[in-house]
């Protein structure tokens, strides 16, 4: 479904992503793990078009999207929950969700909103509140809910558990699993490697802009090097 081939990203003179290639099959949960600054977010941003790769090619559903503008990519069924939530702080919760459905039209939008509220009852309580005054966790829920509003085929999540209460982390991971079983393909970036690998089908380990290991999630969980570096063991 998604095929990333030899992408390179530069920030000025900093070479942040160095020839990364990987792929995500339809229906999979794939996770990218790596230390701070390894380049995980940069990869997601490149896929969604916010950053541009020098050379290389990104194929989504067999279409080269490496030079398509980000807003068009969303329309093709690829959504991203960006790092740091980035909800629209001055808009209400409800409006944020509506923005998520920007590419869609029609009456099912309201149903989708209700679906999201069902998943995150807390959001329903705060539907009229301005997103800027939500707590960190509430914002994270909102960001996920918003991404779901576009009914994506591939959902990219950038550290969705960051700053969330344990109970919510579980909930978020449950939602991810649920979404996946409902047919959404997931590309997950996580610091919480333990959790991520436990729900993922496959994983890639990223170090300073390069993929160093790729394997089945189960294998990675038992990989000593991975254990030592990312699982605190």
């Amino acid at each position, binding site marked *: 479904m998604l095929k990333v081939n030899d992408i390179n990203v530069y920030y000025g003179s900093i070479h942040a992503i160095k020839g990364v290639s990987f792929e995500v099959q339809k229906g999979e949960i794939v996770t990218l793990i790596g230390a701070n600054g390894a380049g995980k977010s940069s990869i997601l941003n490149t896929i969604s078009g*916010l950053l541009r790769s020098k050379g290389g090619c990104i194929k989504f559903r067999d279409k080269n999207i490496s030079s398509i503008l980000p*807003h*068009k990519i969303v329309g093709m069924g690829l959504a991203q929950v960006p790092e740091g939530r980035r*909800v629209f702080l*001055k808009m209400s919760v409800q409006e944020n969700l509506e923005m998520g459905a*920007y590419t869609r039209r029609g009456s099912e939008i309201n149903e989708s909103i209700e679906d999201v509220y069902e998943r995150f009852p807390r959001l329903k309580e705060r539907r009229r509140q301005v997103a800027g005054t939500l707590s960190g966790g509430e914002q994270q829920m909102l960001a996920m809910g918003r991404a779901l509003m576009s009914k994506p085929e591939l959902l990219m999540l950038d550290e969705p558990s960051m700053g969330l209460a344990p109970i919510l982390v579980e909930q978020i991971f449950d939602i991810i699993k649920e979404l996946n079983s409902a047919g959404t393909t997931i590309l997950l970036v996580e610091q919480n490697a333990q959790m991520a690998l436990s729900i993922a089908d496959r994983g890639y380990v990223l170090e300073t802009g390069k993929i160093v290991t790729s394997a089945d999630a189960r294998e990675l969980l038992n990989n000593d090097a991975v254990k030592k570096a990312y699982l605190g063991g």
Partner: protein
Amino acid sequence: MNMSLIISQLINGLQSGSVYALIALGYSMVYGIIMLLNFAHGDIIMVGAYVAWLAMVNFALNPILAIILAIAACVLLGVVIEKVAYTPLRSSPRISLLITAIGVSFLLQNLAQLVFGAGSQRVPAMISGPSLTIAGQYVSFTAMITIVISVVSMLLLTLLVQKSKMGKAMRAVSEDMGAAQLMGISVNRTISFTFAVGSALAGIGSVLYCCAYPQASPTMGSMLGIKAFIAAVLGGIGSIPGAMIGGFCIGLAEAIISAVGLSVWKDGVVFAILIIVLVFKPTGILGKTMTEKV
């Protein structure tokens, strides 16, 4: 002061206030989306006035056609300025954008001076109609039409921004361009649209201005722009009804100050009002205080 004098002074104030308000709306919209004090906005009005003048005097066109041409020219100019001068600076510090806007403003003024000469040109009447008499006081047709058009523009604009999809896209883009793109919003199109609407308002403002003060001169936009901008700030920049209220406040304040014989202090008093309002209500009359969540 007798009653009819007061009424006629109020109408004077409302008329000039309406023009300020229209222009302030444009300022507010552009500010709202890219946080730019678009100093070139006033000069767009100047170009509109010259286009109207050219159309009617040099090409002897019908006034209606001249009005359409003037508005179209403003829209085009606004969008082109945005594309050429502001788009490359999207990710730059805001002050660079501000200086660019000032540069564009200077450029338009000086080009106009080069092309049309330094003196002003008389713009023939574009709108005419029957005048009214209210409370024994004569009210000109242009005054009425100016007030009506600006109120209608404000209502339409409020609807546009609050209700339409494009309006929501505008608000989203103004907050976080990256996230807006992830929602499937075309940032370029949204910003261009905003500039087009803002400039169209400038175009309308320009036509109404010329009806009231039928002259076009290269620097006519700068003071007008600043006043309108103050109106926008006074009302709470980014707020559409705010721009309207601000415009009327300034117009009325000027009229009242002049009426009581303090006209030489007019500009000073207008600015003093602004400062006092800002000190007590730092975000303007209708501006929302957004406390930063820490």
